């Protein structure tokens, strides 16, 4: 079971096609698959439909794929902080499907767990409910949301063993496990690959069964909003 590849480009070999749907992990710029995004830019694959909570910033993260016009549609909950995104969207060059953040996360998990649809009260009575089936349970109205199954998942973890068992660090976990689950194929980048047996079996966040290909690399990990307090405030 050799899941380890030398580079992001090699790890994506044979998996890409124009018009494909990709699920990407990360929240803002935290825990995003930087190396795989760069490899997607390099590949030139186009007309991508990307399910990702955010769309990166200008020039970093998924923003890079927007600049090269490789993205046809975004499925996100929040796309501020990205002028190029807004320009393309307002010019009608980019489709955008807003999903409430929790609905997006649950749609990914559901797709990965063989659940094609689930009911939620999130968005009932709002534009989010338009065109969706409504159903009453115990006198309350819910809407039907669909599971997402993506052609490819690109995710980033902190460490993984050589069988793909992965651990995330702090809030960089976010959408990564559920994005991994919903991919027909999942490629993961990590900061460190360790031998199997080095991770505590009780503390693995994402079992290797969800990870098909694995690369190790160096990450910029850019901070979007650097907020601090002064030492004397302590």
């Amino acid at each position: 079971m050799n899941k380890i590849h030398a580079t992001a480009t090699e790890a994506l070999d044979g998996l890409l096609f124009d018009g494909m749907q990709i699920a990407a992990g990360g929240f803002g710029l935290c825990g995003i698959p930087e190396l795989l995004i760069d490899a997607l830019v390099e590949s030139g694959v186009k007309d991508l439909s990307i399910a990702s909570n955010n769309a990166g910033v200008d020039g970093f993260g998924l923003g890079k794929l927007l600049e090269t016009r490789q993205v046809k549609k975004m499925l996100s909950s929040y796309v501020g902080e990205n002028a190029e995104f807004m320009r393309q969207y307002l010019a009608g060059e980019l489709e955008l499907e807003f999903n409430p953040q929790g609905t997006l996360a649950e749609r990914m998990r559901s797709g990965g767990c063989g659940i094609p649809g689930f009911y939620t009260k999130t968005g009932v009575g709002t534009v989010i409910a338009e065109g969706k089936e409504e159903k009453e349970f115990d006198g309350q109205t819910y809407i039907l949301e669909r599971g997402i199954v993506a052609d490819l998942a690109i995710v980033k973890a902190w460490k993984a063993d050589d069988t793909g068992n992965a651990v995330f660090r702090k809030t960089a976990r976010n959408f990564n496990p559920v994005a991994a689950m919903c991919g027909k194929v999942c490629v993961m980048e990590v900061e460190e690959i360790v031998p199997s047996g080095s991770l505590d079996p009780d503390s693995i966040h994402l079992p290797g069964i969800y990870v098909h290909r694995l690369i190790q690399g160096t990450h910029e990990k850019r901070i979007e909003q650097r907020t601090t307090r002064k030492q004397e405030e302590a």
Partner: protein
Amino acid sequence: MPWNREQMAARAADELQDGTYVNLGIGIPTLVANYTGDKDITLQSENGMLGMGPFPFEGEEDPDLINAGKQTITEVDRTSYFDSATSFGMIRGGKIAAAVLGAMEVAENGDLANWMIPGKLVKGMGGAMDLVAGVGRVIVVMDHQNKKGESKLLKSCTLPLTGKGVVDRIITNLGVLDVVAGGLAIVELAEGVTEQELRDATEAAIV
């Protein structure tokens, strides 16, 4: 004198129950954390964390540790991390006792609009729709009127909704109001604000 931002935040903090888990939105709601006093409150950050601490000291920022506003933060001794599906599972499942958030408009039936102004830049609802649909109690903190002096407490919202009939209590610079059958009920007036002043500043029905 109407309340200022800090006073509104302090008043909102009074709403939080000891021993509960709460979610604070961006803006004035963020300030609420400074006024919880002796109460044992655990803050959720919906990007996957319970037990949110203050901003880090300079030089100690961790790119892997941010809040839902993408700001660098710290952890506390009870912190736990989890994925986004679990995070919104606890929101949708009603495990978060209260959310404090800002608003553009609130209607007398509890409708809330705080995510979108048609024709303007649309950034997205983020986790706001999940929060207002799921948490135990939705507390809105906002100015009573907009910059043009128009009431933000309306008979019905004009902007696209974040949630339908979801608001429980509204804390404005003029006072505190509850959403009840038939309209809004005045709970409290800011010091020096008269009931008539509040009524005059309110489009929504006050019962």
